[in-house]
Every structure is written in C-alpha cells, then in structure tokens.
C-alpha cells in the first residue's frame, strides 16, 4: 500500500464510524428492540473486559467482541485508534484547531518519547485497582469515557443550545413561522424527548476537556502516552504483520513524515517506525514527497536486526523498563487505601438508588463500567452519574434521582442496554417485582398532614397494582387551627417498589414530602 489516497480513505472511514457512534448514541432511546448494536462500542474495549473480569472475578461477556479487535490488531496493528475510536476522532478534530504551530512538533517529539511508556503504567494501575475491587478502568477507558462525556455533557449541551436557539427565534416576530417547522423536525429526529440535564455534568465534562486540551502539549497526547486501551493495542501490535516500510534508496530524510505523524511513531530520519505506536493513519504516505514509504504485510521481527546494526544512532526505546513498571505497581498499592474515602458513608448512602436490575451495591460497583449508556437511554431523565456522593469507588456510576425523573414502569431499557452484567436483564412484566427503593413520608412537609388540605397526588401516581400508598380519613388541625377531616396518605413498605414517581410528582415546593431511599430491608448495603 503506497497510494497517498489511503490517508483520505482512512479519514472518511473514521468519520463514518464517528457518525455511526453519534447515530447510535442519539437513537439509543425508547423504541430499542435489539440492543446489540447500541452497546457494541463499549463492548469493543479489551481493557474494560479485562478489568471487569478481574474485579468481578467472572468471565466478561464482552470478551467475545473485544477479542475480535485484538485478533485484528495482530494483523493490522493499532488500527482501532486511528480508524474506529470515537475519542480518537474527537481528539483529531480538536487537534486541528488547537495545534497551529507545526514547527514546534519536532522539538516536542524528543520529550514525548520519554513519556510514551506512561500508558503501560496506567494500564497496570487500572488492572491492579480492578483486582482490588475498584473499577477505575471505567473512569479512564476511552470508550467508556467518550460515551459518558458525549451523553452527559456534549449531547446535553447541544440539545440545550438548539432548544434555546429556537426559543429565541420563536420570540422574534416573523421568523418563528420559518423556524418552528425546522424545530419540529429537529425535536423528532435529533434532540432528546425532553430537555435533558444531568447532575455532575461538570466533572464529567472537565475530565473530557482536560484530555482534549492535552493536545496543547502534542497531537493525540492522550493516545500517545496515557490511554490504557491504547497500551493494550500497542503491546499487541508489536507483533503485528502490517508494517511501515521505507525504501532507503528513495528516502532523502526530509523529515516531512516525521513531522506529519500525529503519534510521533517515526524516528531515525523518517526511516524507522515504532510499530507499537503507529495507528495506521497513513498520513506519512501522503506527506512523503518521494513516495518512499509504504505499508506491507511482513513477518514480525523479520528485520529486527537492523536497529542493532545502527546502534550508533541514539534511538530511544519506548517499551517501559522493569523499573518503571515496578514504580506504577507500587503507586497502585499506595493508592489503594485512599479509594474508600467516603464522607457520605453514613448519610447520603441511603439516597443512592440504583437503576432497576442492579446487583448488590458492592457487586454493582465492581461490574459497572461507567459508560453512561443507561443514563442516555432513560426516557425520563431519571438516571444521573454520581461524583463523590457514594465515595470514590462509585464515581460516575448511575443513580436514580426521583425528584428529577422517575422510573417508568412500562420500561426496561437500562437493564437491556447495559453492556456488562451490572444490571440484570429484567423483563417489563417483572418491573413490579423489582424493588429499587422504599418511599417514606416527610410528614412536616406533606400537605394533608401539615396543612389539612386533601392532596393525594402520590397515591394517584403510584403504579403498583395494589397501591403502595393508601389513605385513611383522619381529623387534623389546619393552618387556622380548625379541626378538619382529610385523607391522610401512608406507605405500605411491602408493596413499594421505589420507582420514585411519588417523589417526582409531589406538588410541595422544594424537597418532596415523600422521598425514596434504598429499600428498608436491605440494611444499607445489600439490595436484595
């Protein structure tokens, strides 16, 4: 493969995959029958399958899909990063805006080669933490991170921007006749059902922003030196058959390829390549003026002797040394005691309601990969990522916030789309047996209790077939001090499934007068 056209083809394929990713993200909403495609992207990460298996000590189903990518990597090298990865294209696109000064790239290269092995350390730390029960992999894995950031921040921000734009147009006389039909189409096809907003969108967005802004240091800085999934691919692609070749007779060492390489994978005056770093973007084919570069299938290590011959040229090796691996190993051990810091251990814990079908809290935290697919698909905007409310180990896991959205009874999408086993696959008909919480009354706030006026919204909304909220006639004092007979509501704990619609629809201003906590029988940590 010699044609410079390949770099263009790659760019289009990458764009295509980005569109597929965004399309699946937008359309992972209510009528989803087969979730296979919708959660495929997060199943492709070998890093996630590995860490989920390590933390839950179970064989992760997603190995079937991620192994395919690993298998292909043996033949094609780190193609996933350059062709498929949605975070990769996001970084590429922002790089174009951020990196203006191309001459500085060469001076950066020497520095960045020294820190390229950090990704192996991060991979090691993430796997050790997984083994210790903390699924940190979900926080930093690119596929989890990109889905989460797109859902919780980018798509939600985009949705809001479009809505506000058309709101502004709606109120400008004369324009709204034109803008409203467009808005209707957008609302139907592109935007979410209703305006969505998420708790903790700022930490999610900041993490994403930092990764994007790292490109100020070098292009694809994240992919070159930090990405743990990239580390796995680069370990495998050392043995890949698909390699870059330079015809020494044609090459005049103009260094144009070296400058154009976004991964800084080319060294020795453009003649040699770190196969572990090359993401097969074919930019070097395009930039080479003398067409000396080409990609060929080769037996790995066939030309391994050559660098030894040219040992006088000082080429730094990327592969991490035993010493630095030990460093990251001890760093991981040192980090372990700090991950159970949880200042909300005794208070907020009761309000961390997990989506229906969630396993016991400790198992759930180990298996949840924080991809936010359940958060995206929830039709009522009820699920939100948590930040530190349940401690560091539960960072970015989903939580039901009843005051913002309730759990729809006729819906099982979150458990359907979950790419791991963190949520059991439950049927719609089983929803009335799936207990996610228990409601209780805050009698000081409740209108019939405190003001002596009939209300009954919670009782009306309760979806269980024998209502978990019932009422009795009682005589209470109203605000004027008179005795009045009102219908007083109360909760029957055995019937309550904790869907939270009562809390959501409670007409009391501010905190609801009926609130949902984790099930009472669960004694804090055990949910079932």
């Amino acid at each position, binding site marked *: 493969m010699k044609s410079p056209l390949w770099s263009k083809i790659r760019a289009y394929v990458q764009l295509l995959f980005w569109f597929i990713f965004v399309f699946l993200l937008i359309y992972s909403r*209510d*009528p989803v029958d087969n979730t296979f495609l919708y959660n495929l992207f997060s199943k492709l990460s070998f890093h996630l399958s590995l860490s989920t298996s390590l933390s839950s000590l179970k064989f992760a189903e997603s190995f079937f899909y991620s192994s395919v990518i690993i298998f292909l990597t043996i033949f094609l090298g780190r193609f996933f990063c350059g062709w498929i990865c949605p975070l990769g294209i996001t970084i590429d696109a922002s790089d174009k805006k951020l990196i203006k000064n191309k001459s500085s790239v060469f001076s950066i290269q020497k520095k960045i080669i020294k820190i390229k092995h950090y990704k192996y350390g991060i991979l090691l730390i993430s796997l050790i933490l997984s083994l210790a029960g903390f699924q940190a992999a979900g926080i930093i894995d690119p596929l989890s991170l990109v889905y989460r950031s797109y859902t919780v921040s980018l798509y939600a921000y985009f949705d809001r921007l479009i809505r506000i734009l058309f*709101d*502004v147009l*709606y*109120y*400008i*006389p004369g324009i*709204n006749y034109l803008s409203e039909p467009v808005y209707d189409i957008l*609302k139907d096809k592109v935007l979410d*059902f*209703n305006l969505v907003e998420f708790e903790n969108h700022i930490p999610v967005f900041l993490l994403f922003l930092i990764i994007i802004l790292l490109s*100020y240091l070098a292009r694809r800085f994240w992919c070159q030196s930090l990405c743990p999934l990239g580390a796995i691919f680069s370990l495998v692609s050392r043995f890949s058959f698909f390699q870059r070749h330079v015809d020494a007779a044609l090459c005049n060492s103009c260094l144009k390829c070296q400058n154009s390489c976004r991964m800084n994978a080319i060294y020795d005056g453009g003649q040699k390549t770190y196969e572990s770093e090359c993401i097969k973007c074919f930019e070097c084919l395009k930039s080479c003026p003398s067409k000396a570069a080409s990609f060929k299938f080769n037996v790995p290590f066939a030309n391994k002797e050559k660098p030894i011959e040219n040992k006088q040229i000082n080429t730094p090796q990327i592969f991490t040394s035993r010493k630095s691996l030990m460093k990251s190993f001890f760093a991981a051990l040192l980090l372990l005691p700090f991950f159970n810091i949880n200042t909300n251990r005794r208070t907020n814990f009761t309000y961390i309601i997990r989506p229906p079908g969630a396993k016991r809290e400790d198992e759930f935290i180990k298996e949840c990969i924080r991809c936010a697919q359940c958060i995206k698909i929830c*039709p*009522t905007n009820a699920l939100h990522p948590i930040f530190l409310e349940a401690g560091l180990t539960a960072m970015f896991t989903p939580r039901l916030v009843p005051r913002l959205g309730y759990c*729809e*009874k*006729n*819906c099982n999408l979150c458990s359907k789309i979950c790419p791991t086993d963190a949520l059991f696959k439950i049927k719609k008909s089983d929803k009335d047996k799936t207990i996610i919480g228990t409601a209780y009354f805050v009698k000081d706030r409740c*209108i019939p209790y405190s003001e002596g*006026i*009939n*209300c*009954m*919204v919670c*009782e*009306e*909304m*309760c*979806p*269980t*077939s*024998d*209502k978990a909220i019932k*009422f009795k006639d009682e005589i209470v004092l109203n605000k004027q001090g008179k005795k009045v007979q009102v*219908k007083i509501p109360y909760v029957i704990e055995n019937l309550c499934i904790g869907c939270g619609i009562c809390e959501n*629809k*409670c*007409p009391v201003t501010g905190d609801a007068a009926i609130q949902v906590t984790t099930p009472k029988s669960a004694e804090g940590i055990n949910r079932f």
Partner: protein
Amino acid sequence: MLHKFQNYFLKRFARKEFLNRVLKIMSAYFLGKNFIGNKKIFSQTTSNTTTDSEGSKLTIIKGKDLSKETIFKMVDKGLENLGGINKFIKKGMNVVIKPNIGFNAPPESAFTTNPHLVEAVAKKCVETGAKVTVFDRPVHTDKLCYRNSKILEAIENAGAKVHYMDDRKFKEVKIKNGINLNKLEVYEEIIKADFIINMPIAKHHSSANLTMSMKNLMGVIGGRRGWFHLYLHENIVDFNKAVPVQLVILDALRILTANGPASGTEKDVKETNTIVMGTNPVSVDAYTTSLFNKKPTDLEYLTLAAKEKMGEIDIKKLNIQNINV
C-alpha cells in the same frame, strides 16, 4: 495559553461589531418575548356548552364487541343520531381532539382512550375537510405515552396532525365566577380552535372518585399540575368554565373500576362496550357514573357543577337515546 484564546476571538470579531450584533439579536428577542411570549390575553373565553335542551341530550351506543369495525360503526351511528358530523364541523375549521393519552400503557389496560375510537372520530373530522389536531399533556413522558397507547398510530392512520404539547404555548385566561381560580393557563391551540372534541376514558380515580370528560380537561391546562389537586373538585369545575368543549365522545368501551387512574390490572378492567356522546360534559359525566353503579351526587365536582348551573346531572331528567350496534 490565554493570549492564544484572546487572539483567536479578537481576530474573528472586531469587538465593537460583535457587541453590536449581540445587542441587536438580544433586543429583538426581548421585544418579541414581550409581545408574542406574553402569556396574558385579555379576551375572555366563556363556556358555551350549557344549553339545556341540547345539553341534556345524550346518545348511548352499545356495541357487541371491541373490534375496530364495530367501533367505527358505533361512531358512525352515534354521530348520525347527533345530526351528523357536518352539523358541527365545516370545511376549513380548526378542530382539536383531546383524548386521554396520560399514561404509558397499552390500550388493554384502560388507562388511555381507545385508539380505534380516536381513529374513527379523527377520520370523520378529517373527511369533512377540517384541520384536525390531536394532543394531550401526559403524566408520563409524552412520546412514550403517544406510542404505547397506540394513539400515535391511530392519529397517523386517520390523517390528523400529531402534536406534542409545548410549554411555551400556554396563554393566561381569566375565568368569570371561578370557584377556586380566577385565571388559568390554557393551551394556545385550544384557544385558537373553532371546535373542541373531548374524548376521555371513563375510569376510577382515587382523588376525584371517577375521571371522565370534566377531569380530562386538566390535560390542556398549564402550570404546576400537582397544585390543582389541592381543592381538586373546585378546580375541575373551573377548568370547564375556562375551556369551551362543544362535543364529548366518552370512551366506556373498557372501563377501569378500581385502582385508577393508572395502576389497575386486568381484573379491574370491565368491558362495557359503550360510547357516550353529548354536547354537555356535565351531563355526559352524570350518566357515565351509572356504568360504575354510582350516583352523580357521589361525585363532588358534579354536584358543584350542578350548583353552578353548568348542566343537568339528574339522570331521570336527561334525554337519553340508546343505540345498539
């Protein structure tokens, strides 16, 4: 790093020009918001439903089963008895059909209006050449409710316009002699409409006792819905003062006899195969109580409505015409 950002922005927009542009857009927006977005409309709608001779005339249609053909036939016969759809709806009129699409549930559970009935009525209206819009303000997420109640499909089949309610389009309406309220936010399309057809489903309701055509109007009222449940009966009467409904087609094909409005199971659903048509919602509701073996006076809002002289609730005094299909 910061000066890079500054340079970037300064190159794009000269500062003055930029501010100028922003000011222009903002002033247009605020001016527009004051004129178009103003919720207050000063004209007052009054309910024109109360005409004693016409209002107390009810058509009760009983069918033999719940198949689509029977329901279509029932609607045909019923409307014929009322004088034909052309008596009410002329070509080019703006017709609003307001079914109950309040809950995300299949039609068999009887939480929402029967989709075949909606389709039959919408089709009749469309055939006259009127512009027909169907909408409701559901309790659950609107798109799910429209789809799972199968009413979306029905509206599309009939050729009417599907409309999801928009929070920006509520207008303030003053109510003369309201019991509990003196103003309400009513949906713009309802105010603009030439003809409103109310198509509720009759079902048990824990706080209102039964929910039928009068309570169904809560779905076109804006504002905080929960608050209307305090002094619910008074508010229901006030809704009917604010919204002029010209025709009520009540779905009692399947009725929910207990655990209403949205938690009944199969054993609570009773197939009564009945459609009640009338021009006065109060009388329609009064008759429908008999399907639940209740008296109209059991319902506080019906008693209140009778006191306000909004319609006849004494079943003996109603002019009832029975049709069997």
